[in-house]
């Protein structure tokens, strides 16, 4: 048995590349992180920084070709699954690790009812369950994710439901087999703000009830602040900062994280122009020397353009020369 403090999922030096006509494009360039049982970990970053590729790599669902894990390990309960066979992965998926996607509008099959899809998911891992039992379980799952008139919903088609309801159904499907890890890839991006808050509350509630670890992939630091205990900040396929949520919000140690925090609109503060990080994420593989963030960094030093900083620090790690040299530096807050 695992101890409480052991990680359920541990990613070590994961490197994922896409092999295109223009050669190898590294999407994830060696990342390490771990999730403990019952923990909610946030992975934050801009579009194109490798968040989704990381989650697909863990699930073994990379579109292959062209995607391929070229290095590192993924340990699920101590067992390396980074190059596991498809049949082995199929048993893990849903049962042990489940995933919810960004677009609730397209992640349900339009030609089947909610009931058929939910029952299918339950049957997949419990083949001998009697029909009545499966139906009861479906109703119960729908109630657990806070959907009203569960019995009638089973007979309805996805297009009869709103986006928020569909995302709840997706969560119900993902939770149908009590997975130990739930990867949520921007689950609220396509929803409006009130529904977003409800879905996040639901996920926190399920996390408390079932002790399922959640990896929350998002570009929204607000979501992280509300949900997560620990957060990993990714930039251009690498982790630039990692640590407890409070530490990172109060004392960001990387100019990128700092920029992200400053670009959250403040309800109570003075109304000024919102802070933006200039430029955009570099094309994967285009920067070969120095810190990946150097071209956009306000505090860039000469050595940032030549040497690559390492991820260092104790519980709160960062990949930046500025903070490694000067120790913890209070930056503008």
């Amino acid at each position, binding site marked *: 048995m695992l101890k409480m403090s052991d990680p359920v999922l541990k990613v070590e030096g994961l490197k994922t590349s896409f092999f295109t006509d223009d050669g190898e494009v590294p999407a994830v360039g060696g990342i390490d992180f771990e999730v403990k049982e019952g923990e909610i970990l946030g992975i934050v970053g801009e579009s194109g920084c490798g968040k989704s590729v990381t989650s697909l790599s863990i*699930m073994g*669902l990379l579109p292959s070709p062209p995607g391929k894990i070229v290095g590192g390990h993924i340990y699920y309960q101590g067992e390396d699954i980074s190059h596991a066979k498809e049949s082995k992965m*199929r*048993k*893990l*998926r*849903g*049962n042990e690790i*489940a*995933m919810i*996607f960004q*677009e609730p509008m*397209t*992640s*349900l*099959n*339009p*030609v*089947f*009812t909610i009931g058929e899809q939910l029952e*299918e*998911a339950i049957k*997949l*891992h419990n083949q001998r369950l009697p029909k009545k039992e499966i139906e009861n379980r479906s109703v119960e799952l729908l109630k657990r994710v806070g959907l009203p008139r569960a019995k*009638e919903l089973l*007979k309805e*088609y996805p297009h009869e439901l709103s986006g928020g309801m569909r995302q709840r159904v*997706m969560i119900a*499907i*993902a939770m*149908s*087999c009590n997975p130990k890890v739930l990867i949520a890839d921007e689950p609220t991006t396509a929803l409006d703000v009130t529904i977003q808050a409800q879905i996040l509350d639901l996920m926190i509630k399920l996390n408390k009830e079932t002790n399922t670890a959640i990896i929350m992939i998002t570009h929204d630091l607000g979501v992280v602040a509300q949900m997560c205990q620990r957060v990993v900040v990714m930039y251009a396929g690498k982790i630039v900062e990692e640590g407890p949520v409070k530490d990172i919000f109060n004392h960001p140690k990387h100019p990128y994280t700092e920029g992200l925090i400053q670009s959250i609109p403040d309800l109570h503060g003075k109304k000024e122009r919102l802070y933006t990080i200039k430029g955009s994420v570099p094309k994967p593989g285009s920067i070969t020397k120095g810190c990946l963030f150097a071209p956009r960094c306000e505090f860039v030093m000469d050595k940032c353009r030549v040497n690559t900083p390492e991820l260092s620090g104790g519980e709160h790690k960062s990949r930046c020369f500025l903070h490694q040299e000067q120790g913890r530096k209070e930056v503008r807050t």
Partner: protein
Amino acid sequence: MPQTAQVHAETRAAKERSPFVNAISEFWKSYRKNKPALFGTGIILVFILLAIFANFIAPQGINDQNITNKLQAPSAAHWFGTDDFGRDIFSRILFGARLSLRVGFLAVIGSIVVGTLLGILAGYFGKVLDVVISRLFDILLAFPSILLSIAIVAILGPSLNNALVAIAIVNVPVFGRLVRSRVLTVKEEEYVVAARSIGMGDMRIIFHHILPNSIAPIIVQGTLNIATAILDAAGLGFLGMGAEAPLPEWGKMLSDSREYIQNAPWTVLFPGLAIVLVVVGFNLIGDGLRDALDPRMKN
């Protein structure tokens, strides 16, 4: 408001029926607005009924000869006249409907089954399999279809059943390519990735997600192809590559009577008319199905 009450009653009634019945009634609602399609359905239903009850309707047997009565113009006794052996053309056309409809349906079902299978293999599993299957389709499509069916019949020997097989083979790539392109699209849909993320296997994904989402264009193409299959069968019959001599196959009847086209035009007119009606009927149904089943046309 009475109108809203009625709508509520309707939606409630819809909830209580099974999803399948619901889908059918939904489909019927949009299909019945299409007058030409209803007309086509009418034609085909009449032909199907005539074919089924040919035994009871036909005034004479298909091979009842009466040489003294040959090449008679249409009359009360012989509605469509008689041919050069004095056989009743009306009766022959009724029995001919059996042959033509059978060829149409069976050939299309055959090519749908084989084409769908190959299309799924090519589209879903891809790689080498896709290259091999797709090139095979390209090769089949490179021949003019009638030429290819003649070649196949020449190998198998002329008979109506071999013509059926030939037509089925010729039509395989039509369905194969259609299914392959649908599979390629549906495979990338998020619900397929979502299904894989809960541990669904390839076979389940193919039969639960990909096939049901590809079925509508197959049905539409299938209906349209029944018409071409019947036409091809008639063409092969006309060329002497299809049905054998006494069989009342429509194409065969046309070719047998072509010498009498000036003296006894009814011998050509009625079988030709039968072919035209059935082909038009299936085409109208196909167009109607396309409009009713295309999700983009739904409101």
